[in-house]
C-alpha cells in the first residue's frame, strides 16, 4: 500500500512519514501543492493525506484537480482548519475523510486503514482469504491462527494482494504500490518476495497468471 503525504511543515511531514511508514505503508511526501498535484496525477497511490494550507497551490484546489482528472484514490484531509464550513467544503471538493490537527497518530492510522479498506470494498478491518487472515490494525498476518513473520516488503506485497483478492495483479502494479517513489526499484525483487511468501502461505494461495501477473485466492 502506497501513501502520499502532503504537508508543508517539514517536522510534521517527517513525523507523519515515520508513523505511517512504521505501520507498513510505502510513503511518498510532497511539501507544496504543485508537487502534490503532479505526484497524485502520475502515481497510483492507495491513499493520500492532504494538508489544506499549502504553498503554491492550496489543498482544496489540488483535490479538485485530481477529481476532475478522474483520480479516485481515497483522500484524507489533515488540517488545522476545523470549522464545519471548511469540513463541508473539503468533503464537497472530493475528500473521503477529514481530520483536524492536532491529531493522534493512532486515529490517523485507523482512519487511513478504513479508507483503504472501503476503497477496496471491504467492510471489516480483518481481511481474510481462506485460512489466511490479515489484521490491518496491527499489520499482522495469520494462517489458521498462527502468526506469520514477514519483512516489511513481504507485508506490503501480501497486504496489496489481500486488498485485491481474486484479482490479477501485474508485477508492475505491485512495484508501483510497494515502493516509495525514490526507492531504487527492481521488478525482479517482486519475484523474490512472491517466492518467499509462497513458502509461508498455504500452498496454492498465490497463482501465477502467465503474462499477466499474480492472483491471491483461497486454495481449493
Amino acid at each position: 500500500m502506497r501513501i502520499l503525504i502532503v504537508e508543508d511543515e517539514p517536522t510534521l511531514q517527517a513525523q507523519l512519514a515515520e508513523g505511517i511508514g512504521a505501520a507498513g505503508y510505502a510513503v511518498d511526501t510532497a511539501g507544496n501543492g504543485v508537487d502534490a498535484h503532479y505526484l497524485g496525477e502520475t502515481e497510483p497511490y492507495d491513499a493520500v493525506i492532504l494538508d489544506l494550507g499549502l504553498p503554491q497551490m492550496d489543498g482544496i484546489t489540488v483535490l479538485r484537480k485530481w477529481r476532475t482528472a478522474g483520480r479516485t484514490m481515497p483522500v484524507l484531509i489533515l488540517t488545522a482548519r476545523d470549522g464545519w464550513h471548511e469540513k463541508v467544503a473539503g468533503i464537497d471538493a472530493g475528500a473521503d475523510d477529514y481530520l483536524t490537527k492536532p491529531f493522534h497518530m493512532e486515529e490517523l492510522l485507523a482512519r487511513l486503514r478504513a479508507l483503504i479498506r472501503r476503497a477496496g470494498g471491504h467492510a471489516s478491518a480483518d481481511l481474510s482469504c481462506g485460512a489466511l487472515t490479515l489484521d490491518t490494525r496491527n499489520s499482522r498476518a495469520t494462517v489458521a491462527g498462527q502468526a506469520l513473520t514477514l519483512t516489511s516488503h513481504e507485508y506490503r506485497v501480501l497486504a496489496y494482494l489481500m486488498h485485491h483478492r481474486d484479482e490479477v495483479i501485474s508485477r508492475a502494479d505491485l512495484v508501483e504500490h510497494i515502493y516509495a517513489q525514490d526507492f531504487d526499484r527492481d521488478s525482479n525483487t517482486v519475484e523474490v518476495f512472491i517466492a518467499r511468501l509462497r513458502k509461508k502461505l498455504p500452498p496454492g494461495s498465490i497463482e501465477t497468471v502467465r503474462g499477466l501477473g499474480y492472483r491471491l485466492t483461497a486454495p481449493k
Partner: protein
Amino acid sequence: MNTATPANSANTRSSTRRPLRNSLRLRLLAGTLFWITASIIIAGWGLSGLFRQHVETQFHAELKMHLDQLTAQLVLNDKGQPILSQPLSDPRLNRPYSGCYWQVDSLAQDAASGLLRSRSLWDYTLAAPADSPADGSIHQHRIVGPEGKMLGMVERSVRIEEAADGQVRTFRLIAAADESLMAEPVARFNGALWLALGLLGVGLVVAALVQVFIGLAPLEKLRGALGRVRSGETQALEGRFPVEIMPLVEEFNSVLVQNAEVVERARTQAGNLAHALKTPLSVLANAAAADNNKEGALAQLVSDQVASARQQVDYHLARAQAAATTRIPGTRTPLLPIIDGLVRTMRRIHAERGLELVVQPLPASLLFRGDAQDMQEMLGNLLDNACKWASHRVEISAHSENDQLRIAIDDDGAGIAVEQRDTVLRRGMRADEQVPGSGLGLAIVGDLVHLYGGQIVLADSPLGGLRSLLVLPLAR
C-alpha cells in the same frame, strides 16, 4: 426539561409609538400651525381695520357731500327765511328715520334750532353742541339722534346776505347720519373676511399636513429599509432616497460593507492563527507520543499541555468568530443547503459507523437570521455528536414556529442523563471520555446560540437517545 420556552429574543423592536415630543412631524406641524394662526389673525385685524377706516372716510365724505349740497341749495326767500332752492338728491333724506339727516339752525340773536330739517328727521330736532365753527370750517361731532341712536354729524356756519336789507344772517348747516349705516357694512365685511380667512387657514393647515407627511415619507421609507436590513431581508439599504438623505444612506451602506469586510478579515486571521498554532502543536504532540512509548514525565506533560492548548485555541477562536458575526445585520441563511452539506460530510466522516442519516422533509424557504458559518458550526457540532453516539439512526427535522426557527437532531444512542444535561453545555465538559473529541462542541454551540439570543435544549428523543433542539431567530 422537555419543552423549550421562547427564546429571550434580542431583537425586541423598539416601540413604534414614539413620544410625540420627539416627533419631527409634530415639530414641523406645530411651527406651521403657529405661523398660520398668527398670519391670519394679523391679516384679519389689519384688513378689518383698513376697511373700517375706508368706510369711515366714505361716511364722512358722504356727510360732507350732503353738507356741500345743502350749502349750495340754501337761499333766503323774500321774507328773509332760509329755504332750499332745490331738494337734496339723496332719497334717504326724505324717508323718515332713514338714518340720513340734515338740519339748518339759525345762529342769529333769535337763535333757533331746526329752522329747516330734512323730512327724514320727521319731528325730531338735532341737538348740535353749542359751538360756532369759524367761517367755512367744518366740525365733526357725535350726537344722539332720533330713537337714541348715535349719529355722526358735520356742521359748518354759513353767512347769507339778505338781499332786501343787506343784513347778514348766519346759519349753521348740519348733515348727520346714523353710525349704524357705517357699522353694518363693516360687520358684513368682517363676517365675510373671517370666513374667508378661516377657510384659508383650514386650507393651509391641510396643505401643511400633506406637506409634512409627503416631506417626511422618505424617512418612513428609510425606517422600513432599515427594518428589512435588520430582519435580514436585504444586505443594504435599498431604494432611491431624496438627495438630502441619500448621503446618509450611502454612508450607512458603506459602513455595512466595511463591517462585513472587517468580520471577514478577522475570520481569515483567526483561521490563519489556528493553522499557525495547531501545526506546531501537532508536531509537539506527535513527538511527545513517540517519546511516551519509551518513558518520561516530560512527554506526558507535553501531551497534556498540547491537549489543553488545543482546547483553548478551539474555544476562543470559535468564540471570536461567532462574536464577530452576529453584529452584521442583514445576514440570512437558507437552512436546507447547510443541512444537506453537513449530512454529506457526516456520511463520509462517520462512514465506518454505517449510520442511517435521515433529513425529515423541510421547506426550502426556512431562513436563519444569521451567518451561514455559525449555523454550520452549531449544526455540525450537534450532528457530529449525534453521529458519534447513535446506534443506527440520526434524524434531523426543522420547522418555523412563532417567528422562530426550531431544529431538532435526534439519535438512538444512550442519551445523556437528565442531571448531566446542563453540565455538558458548559465549557469543556464531557459526558463520557470514551469517544474522541475535545469536549468543546456543545459548549461552542451553547455560546453561539446565546449570541444569537436563541436557546438550546437537550431532551429525550423519540428515537430513544438524545434530542438536541435549537431555537434560533428566523428570517423572513
